[in-house]
């Protein structure tokens, strides 16, 4: 019974406490406030909560948006496929949340004494690993994440088809073409990473990124696979259908793409699904390339079971850290990395103009795909030689 309770708490905290909170706050802070700052504006600050005479950085606006969305009239166009039109938003939204099942926010909890084995491997002496910081621990986490990410194509495509509108249909077609194209280079760019880590388990991958090269540089994915990081970042951004890859919405060409015919909370769910996908891609990049929950910072400090070491290329003295502090630091590191990556994606969104459709396809098939193949071949050679 306690296990079931722990599972439930994990799901609630991760999905509602982190993913939904970040995704819905991003609708305001990321999209409206951040764009305002970039464009020398202030952004929304007029909505007030009762009895609080402060704009609270505009947060009440997002509550007001929610209320507005709930109270709007639900419009289903004539000739729309009623059932599919109804379930399409769920099909967009579900994959964005399901993917979080494999995301580790911390290493497994060690009920005994955490110690450092040779080769920078952390071992649990006199206890066992308990999976407290990952909803579901299984050895194919990356495959699962990819499978789930691919499923979200269906939501957009079905939404486009079921709306009985040409704009929606075009948007749905565009989104499926784009997502399928970029999935290829996304997967291939990761093949090199898989070769180096030799595992599909996301948590094990993060553990291996705690190993040190030359005794000071954490073996992060971005260190051993810099090209793959760029490829994956680009393909991941295209996968989330956000600007500069937001052709499926392309408001200057096809109104709002596959969400043209959606209103009320269905529209909000579609939008939230996109934001949640953005956060998910950010978490995936953090896990695969930026050391996930590893709290080290390359060149500045190293944190592991022995403690914390500042300026690791100079000194070899560890300051001891209690286990609770280590857990806190690692969770904090994962959260901060995810948030910074989300912020960076929004930064890109407000920096770059939208790609033309042919440019998106050229970028996907003619540039990213050959580059990721080349990366794969070079990595394979290097791994085979070493």
């Amino acid at each position, binding site marked *: 019974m306690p296990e079931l309770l722990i599972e439930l708490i994990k799901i609630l905290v991760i999905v509602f406490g982190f993913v939904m909170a970040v995704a819905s706050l991003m609708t305001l802070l990321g999209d409206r406030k*951040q764009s305002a700052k970039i464009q*020398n*504006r202030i952004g929304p600050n007029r909505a007030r909560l009762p009895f609080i005479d402060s704009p609270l950085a505009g947060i009440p606006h997002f509550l007001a948006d929610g209320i507005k969305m709930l109270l709007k009239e639900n419009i289903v166009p004539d000739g729309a496929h009623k059932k599919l039109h109804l379930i399409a938003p769920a099909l967009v939204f579900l994959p964005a949340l399901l993917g979080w099942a494999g995301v580790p926010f911390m290493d497994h909890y060690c009920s005994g004494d955490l110690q450092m084995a040779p080769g920078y491997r952390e071992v649990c002496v006199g206890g066992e690993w308990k999976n407290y910081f990952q909803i579901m621990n299984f050895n194919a986490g990356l495959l699962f994440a990819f499978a789930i990410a691919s499923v979200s194509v269906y939501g957009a495509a079905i939404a486009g088809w079921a709306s009985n509108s040409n704009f929606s249909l075009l948007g749905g077609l565009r989104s499926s073409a784009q997502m399928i194209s970029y999935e290829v280079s996304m997967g291939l760019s990761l093949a090199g990473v898989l070769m180096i880590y030799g595992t599909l388990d996301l948590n094990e991958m993060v553990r291996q990124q705690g190993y040190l090269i030359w005794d000071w540089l954490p073996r992060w994915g971005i260190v051993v696979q810099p090209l793959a990081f760029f490829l994956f970042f680009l393909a991941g951004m295209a996968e989330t259908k956000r600007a500069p890859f937001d052709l499926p919405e392309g408001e200057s060409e096809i109104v709002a793409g596959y969400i043209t015919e959606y209103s009320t909370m269905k529209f909000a769910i579609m939008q939230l699904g996109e934001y949640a996908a953005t956060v998910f891609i950010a978490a995936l990049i953090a896990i695969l390339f930026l050391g996930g929950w590893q709290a080290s910072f390359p060149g500045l400090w190293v944190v592991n079971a022995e403690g914390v070491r500042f300026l690791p290329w100079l000194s070899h003295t560890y300051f001891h850290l209690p286990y609770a502090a280590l857990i806190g630091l690692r969770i904090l590191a994962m959260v901060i990395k995810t948030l910074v990556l989300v912020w960076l994606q929004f*930064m*890109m969104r407000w920096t770059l103009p939208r790609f033309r459709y042919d440019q998106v396809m050229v970028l996907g098939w003619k540039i990213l795909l050959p580059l990721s193949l080349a990366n794969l071949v070079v990595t394979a050679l290097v791994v085979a030689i070493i």
Partner: protein
Amino acid sequence: MGNVEVKPVERRERTFWEKTYVPEIAKGLAVTMGHFFRNLSPNKERRQTFTRQYPEEPTHYPPRYRGIHRLMLREDGQVRCVACMCCSTICPANCIHIEAGEHDDPSIEKYPQTFVIDELRCIVCGLCVEACPCDAIRMDSGRHIPPYAERGEAFLDRDLLMEAGGLSMAKQGGER
């Protein structure tokens, strides 16, 4: 069918690094991040936001902004206007209505018994100010014409216009 003149435009070949997008995106990000962090800086002087919190912060008008009219006063508090009809004559929108009355003081001769400006008709051209020979009407009150709920409120009469009035530096009547 005549020949269509076509001017071929020389297109610059993109360099390798431009084709990879990476340095160009970095440059773009540098610009947007510069704005982002500058506008987040705690020192408000460094921020570049142009937004004015309107109802709380007053709008700043330039010194020569043509706002709502005002009628200037003599030293004894009477209206400077001598009802010469120059302003109502030149007004292209026909929004100034003056009825002259005989003044008790023989050196003044005339004064406006009624002086009504229909601010809804006024096109804020400032010609009345230009035409006035004795600096009696001005538009430098610094207040813009407010929105009116009813048409009647837009007719500003003499006393209302004099409330914002002040003394003029010009000598009334000039040399005699």
